[in-house]
Each structure stands twice: as structure tokens, then as C-alpha cells.
């Protein structure tokens, strides 16, 4: 009886075994890395309707975050300021600037400026600014060095795993409440002990169970 397969077919079992092994590992790695928000979401930098510069306002001028985003201490949702907040200053300063034309238009017509939201969470994940800000999570911990950004960009993945890294070990990330809005905050040498002490006294117990955030 003649041979059905050529001799080189003998290599097929070896190739398929190795292929299956590496293929499996590769698939898992591929999904784990390329399907994660760390790959898909970080660096999101949408064009805004007004060429507003955080570097100028928060960085060079040193305006506190909460001057504009004034709900963070009391509300789940951190607000984007209304046109009125801009006009607090800009009725006096740079009143003729072309860059501010959309702001003045909004002021005149009562139509809000359509800012584009940068930091998006899925609908099924609840995030509360007040709980985080009042327990010593700094703005820059999640949003990065806003004071160095011309246009706001997402710098952290905001993925569940990323949240859990802090929820499991908050002592590595917390800072005193008066330093929450500080940009470029440097932790002192004994900050872990300081945070452990605070966590113990204030019973800071970030949830790591499902319904902590998915409710």
C-alpha cells in the first residue's frame, strides 16, 4: 500500500503540539494586554470646544482644582464648571481674546459649552468623588499631572484592576486631606506608617467586594 502522506508530514504532530501551547499562551496574553483599558483608553485626548489650557490656569497661575471643580468634596460627580465660573475672571481679563469667543457666546446665549468628558467609567461602575477626596486620594493619583497638560488627557487606565490596586493597599497611595489638590506632591519617608495610622483611626476600609462599586 502506498504512503498516504509524504515523509515531511512527520513533523506535523510536533508543530501542532508546540503551536497549541504557544497559541494558547499567546491568545491569553494578547487579550490580557491589548483588550485592556491600559492599552485602549490611556492617552485619550479629545479636542475640546474651547482651547482651554490647564497648564496655564492650574500650573502657571496656580488656581486650585476646586475653584472650578467645586463639587468634588460633596458630590459623587465632579462637575465641569459652568460658563459663569469662567466669566468670574474673564469679564475683566482678556475680554477681547479670540480664543475665548465660544465662552462669550455661551455667556451671551445661555447655551452651555459642550465640553467633552475625558475620564469615562462604565455605567455599571459607580465612582464617588466625595468618598475619595475626603479620605486622602489626591486628584493627581487618578488624573495625573493636570497642571502640566495643555489639553486634558487620560493617563491612568481606570480599569477595575487598577482601582483594586489601591483598594487593596490604600496605605501606598493616600495623602493628608490638605494635600489632595496638590500637584507633584512628594510623600515623606514615613508615609506608609502615617497612612496606616490614619487608616486605623479613621477606619478607611475601601471595598474589594463586587457590590462596593457595582450596585
Amino acid at each position, binding site marked *: 500500500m502506498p504512503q*498516504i502522506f509524504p515523509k515531511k508530514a512527520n513533523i506535523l504532530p510536533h508543530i501542532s503540539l508546540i503551536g497549541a501551547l504557544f497559541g494558547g499562551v499567546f491568545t491569553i496574553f494578547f487579550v*490580557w494586554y491589548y*483588550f485592556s483599558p491600559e492599552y485602549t483608553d490611556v492617552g485619550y485626548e479629545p479636542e475640546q470646544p474651547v482651547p482651554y489650557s490647564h497648564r496655564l490656569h492650574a500650573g502657571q497661575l496656580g488656581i486650585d482644582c476646586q475653584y472650578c471643580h467645586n463639587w468634588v468634596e460633596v458630590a459623587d460627580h465632579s462637575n465641569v464648571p459652568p460658563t459663569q465660573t469662567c466669566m468670574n475672571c474673564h469679564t475683566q481679563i482678556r475680554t477681547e481674546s479670540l480664543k475665548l469667543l465660544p465662552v462669550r457666546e455661551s455667556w451671551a446665549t445661555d447655551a452651555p459649552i459642550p465640553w467633552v468628558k475625558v475620564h469615562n467609567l462604565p455605567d455599571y461602575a459607580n465612582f464617588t468623588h466625595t468618598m475619595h477626596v475626603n479620605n486622602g486620594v489626591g486628584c493627581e493619583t487618578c488624573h495625573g499631572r493636570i497642571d502640566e497638560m495643555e489639553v486634558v488627557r487620560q493617563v491612568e487606565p481606570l*480599569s477595575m*484592576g*487598577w482601582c483594586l490596586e489601591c483598594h487593596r493597599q490604600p496605605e501606598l497611595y493616600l495623602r493628608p486631606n490638605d494635600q489632595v489638590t496638590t500637584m507633584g506632591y512628594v510623600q515623606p519617608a514615613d508615609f506608609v506608617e502615617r497612612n496606616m495610622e490614619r487608616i486605623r483611626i479613621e477606619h478607611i476600609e475601601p471595598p474589594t467586594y463586587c457590590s462596593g462599586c457595582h450596585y
Partner: protein
Amino acid sequence: MSTASTGKSLAFTAGDGYHDDPPLVAGNLSFHEVTDLVALHTEKKTPMAWYGAFSIANIGLMILLLSVAYLFWNGVGVWGLNNPVGWGYAIVNFVFWVGIGHAGTLISAILYLFRQKWRTAINRSAEAMTIFAVICALLFPTIHVGRVWAIYWSLPIPNQMEMWPQFKSPLLWDVFAVSVYFTVSLVFWYVGLVPDLATLRDRTPLTKKLRQKVLGFFALGWNGANRHWRNYEKAYLLLAALATPLVLSVHSVVSFDFAVSIIPGWHTTIFPPYFVAGAIFSGFGMVMTLMVIARKVYHMENIITINHLEKMNIIILLTGTMVGFAYITEFFIAWYSGSPYEQYAFINRATGPYAWAYWTMMSCNLLFPQFFWFKKLRRNVAFMFVVSIFVNIGMWFERFVIVVTSLHRDYLPSAWDYYTPTAIDVLTLIGSFGLFFTLFLIFLRFLPMVALAEVKMVMPQSDPHFYEGHGDGHGAAHDLSAGKPESDRGKS
């Protein structure tokens, strides 16, 4: 396998050498006739009857696909589930199918280790049945999670959510137990198939290139060399040893889904052995149903003889009685525990709103197999077919009774309710049979339904001393008729 000495060679025709056991292969078939008998069905033109059966099975499969698609689109609300019965048909069907999946590995692994030679006639189709039943079983927990696109959360795969399965949950143990069982059963089945696929390959005429290539690919270059046989038998033995604990562990783990909880009627230490016995019982019931039809349709009466069927009936009788004993033990323990909740759960089972299901289960599982105490009845093909159908029904109802009656009276009387399945529930169950029979018909059409190599090993001709020693009392060739039934004697 057949390293039997001359003295033992008689065992093929004469059992232990003292009793006059009938031969395992009747009709005084030669090796070639056995090959022809089995291989023919994969080689000839597809019969119209097969197409007919396949169409009906395919309608079932379509019903399954449509009802599952409807479920995915709308969510589990389309099922009859609600408080307090949060587990309904899906879990009943899961346990039912996974239980049926136990016969194949029991026949091929445990009976192999115990040197039960009669297994060779049915092991191939029983193993195929196991694999297809486990496929049906795996379907139900998958679709009942509701958000089926997140089913991979049940596997420990690295992910950006840094989420890990809950290893304290019996539901996760289930994932591992059933998927390991499926993998091992599939490998075991395939390894057993290799020599037979080579037989089919070698029978293929040279003009049929594709068939030759496909069979040649799956036969892994098998050429019947001594070294091949030695490796094969070693691998088969090792796989049998690996599969044996799985037969016991898988359904034990399935029973933990219930036993680990605190619901009266579920929270019972008897569950693991009772579930394993029930699984083997239901599995043999299904094997019997399929084999009675297959041996008739494919004219396999000489290979799957009435003696094989009788042995299976004895196992059905044994395991059915064990299951019945477990039912009664549950009642005893409920009384003996002194716990009013436990007692209520069981009295409610027998007399409450689901008493009809309970007594269906009792009569099908405990009562009907008792007829097999009579030799006449356990050798009656029509009768055993009817009983096997009752066993299938009874074992489905056993799971229904366990799941539904335990839940519908929970700790909060205001929540008590009567669970009724919806049409989608019923259609999914019917559809799962469609899936099962579709796969089984494909198997019957394209693969050798009897393990040819293994059947030949238990035939008297396979004894190396078969053709020698005329008149010295060692050979058996001169006296083949000795082991044949009375009626056949003297004909050859």
C-alpha cells in the same frame, strides 16, 4: 491485553473455566467478519433512514439554537425562574446530562481495570454518548449565568479586572470537574479509536483520496507494529487509571453544588455517593436505550449479544436499588436528625405540591428496575427498552425533585411559591436532546461504533494457542461450539 496463557484462553469461551459461559461474540464470526460488520456502516452509501433520523435530530438542534438565542437576547427572565426557585430546568438538565455522561467512562475505564471483557462490545458507543452528554451538560450552566459573554470569568485567566474565580465555591469546582472530565473522556475515546481508524484507513479504496487522508491524519500513522501496540496499551491503561477516579469525583463535585449549601433537602452528606450511583444508573439507562436501537438497526446482535444487555440490566438493577436505598435513607435521616425543617422538607416532597414528581421518580427509579430480578425479563429486549426509558425519565425527575422541591419551600413562608417552567424551558430541554442525537448520529455514520480491536482481543481466535493442540485439551479451535448456546450446538 490478550497475554492469557493456554489455561486462561478457555476463559474466553468458558468464563472462569468451571462455568459454561456463552462466548462474548456470538455467531462464530471470524476477525474479518467482525471488521466488515462494523466498518461497513461507515463506508456504504448513507441510508435514507439515517437522513430521516438526522433531520429530526436537526430540528431539535434548531429548536435549541433558537431558544438559546431568544434567551441571550432577552435574559433569563424568559425562564420560569423567580424567588424562591432560582434554579430550575437549566440546573436540572445540567445534572441530568452530566449524570448520563458517567456510563461511558465507567464502562471503558473501571470495567477495563476490572477486566470485564464484555465491555468491549459497548464501550465505544458508550464513550461517544458520554462525550455528547457532557457537551449537552456544559451548555446549561453556561447559558444559565445570564450574561454569557462573561462566562470566561469562571476560568482562572489573567485579566485587567484582576478578578480571580472564587475557589471556595462548589460552582467553580464544577467548572473544573466537568471540564477535566470532558477532556479526559475525549482523549480516552480518541486513543481507543486510533487502531480502528487505521483499520478503516487501510480498507479505503485508493480512489477515495480525501477519506484516506482524513482517516490517515487521525490514525496518527498507526501501522499495527508491535511497538505501537505496546505503547497504545500502556497509554490506554494509564488513561483508564486516570479516568477511574473521575467517574467518582465528577458527580460528587456536582452534588456539592447542593450539599455544601444549607437548604433543607440539599444539605446532606449522603449526596456524593448517592449522586454517583444515580449517575451510573442514568448512564446505563441511556446506553441501554441507544444500544437496543443501534444493535437492531445496524444488525449488531452478534456483537452486542443478549448477554451483554443482561449484564447491563444487572448494573441497572444494582444502581437503581442503591439510589432507592438513598431515597429511603434521606427520609430516615430527616426523622433521625430531629430537625423540623429537615423533616418538613422530606414530608413535603412526598405529599406536597410536587408529590407527583416525587412519585414519578420513586416508581421509575426504584420500582421498575426491580423487574430485572427475573432472568426472563432482563433478557427481554422490548421490556428492557421500556424500562430504560423509564430510567431516563425517572432520573430527570430525581434532579427536578432535588432542585425544585427543596427550593420552593424555603425558610421564609411568605416567599413560598410553585415553580412552573415556561415554553422556552421545555424547548431548551427538547433541543438539548436534538443536539445529543445530532452528534450521536454523526458518530454512528462516520466512526466505527464498536471498538473493533478490542472486540477481537476477546474472541477465542485471538489466543495465540487457538489453532494448535488438536485433541490435547488445550486448544479451543476444535471445540468452538462448546461455548455456544444450546440451540447452535452441532451446527458448525
